[in-house]
């Protein structure tokens, strides 16, 4: 795998969030989805930085919505997972599942 194709953990999380949200995936719901999943505050700047990297790798595409007053007249940027992005998610899932199966039971992992 070339270095530029490598999918970092945060990138994968953003990619999964965009997939889960579907059509209405822009910065705010993506960040909220990640906050709900991790229980930690997520920086919108980090989300956009990850989205820029994903776009560079052609794993997501974007389109610009209409400007709205509650956003200070700025438009939303909607993101969508590309076929390459879906493939990357499937590949990552397969790799994680394989690695997970190979693990001995972790101490304290069961209630």
């Amino acid at each position: 795998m070339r270095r530029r194709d490598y999918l970092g953990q945060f990138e994968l999380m953003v990619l999964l969030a965009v997939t889960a949200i579907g059509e209405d995936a822009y910065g705010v719901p993506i960040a909220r989805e990640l906050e709900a999943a991790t229980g930690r505050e997520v920086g919108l700047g980090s989300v956009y930085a990850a989205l820029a990297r994903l776009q560079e790798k052609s794993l997501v595409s974007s389109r610009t919505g209409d400007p709205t007053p509650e956003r200070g007249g700025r438009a939303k940027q909607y993101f969508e997972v590309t076929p390459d992005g879906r493939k990357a998610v499937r590949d990552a899932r397969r790799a994680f599942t394989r690695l997970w199966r190979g693990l001995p039971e972790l101490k304290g992992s069961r209630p």
Partner: protein
Amino acid sequence: MKQSPVVARWLLSRFTSCTPAALQGDLEEEFRSGRSSAWYWRQIVGAIVAGSITEARVHPFLVLRALASGWIVLLLFFACGDVMAQTLARYAWNWNRSDGYGYGVWWPFHIAGFVVSYVGFALSALMIARTHAAHAMPMVLAYMVSVLSVLAASAALIEWINGPIGVPHTLYYFVSIGLPFMWRSGFVLVPLVIFFTGLFSCGKEMEMTCAGTNR
């Protein structure tokens, strides 16, 4: 309508004028829906750091150019540091070098050297900001990190040697501010001088270059 902190918005626009307008809109939307000013500031700082790292990653040659040009200006300026510091000390306190060697009176030279040091850092940051238009602040930030790293390494080296060490006069103006006799002021003042010089000297070109972009 609830207004987001003006200074924070201004800071973000200075740092990342090429930031997607969508990010600024998202921050505005969240703030108006009830997020606190502290949240807004945290997001701004995070966006500045993330945006600067992304800029540096996307434009590595610009970073190299900014670092090279900043250091060249700094060292060229410091090469003339002795002349400037002595001239300043002579005019301000009627001091000359024979006072130092003859009577051990060095404080006027130290103060003049202190001024020369920080003028050098400000000038190099100004030069980077003025020559890197749309990417000014991320480049200034990269330069600031490089200066702090070298300053910390050289101060640590001098402390570790723990004895008299010959330093070329050009480098005196660089390392002296990291040493105890200058109260290690460089570790606080160097980032501040570089940051604020960059901040106040990068404006208009960035806005012009990035106007209308929605990267």
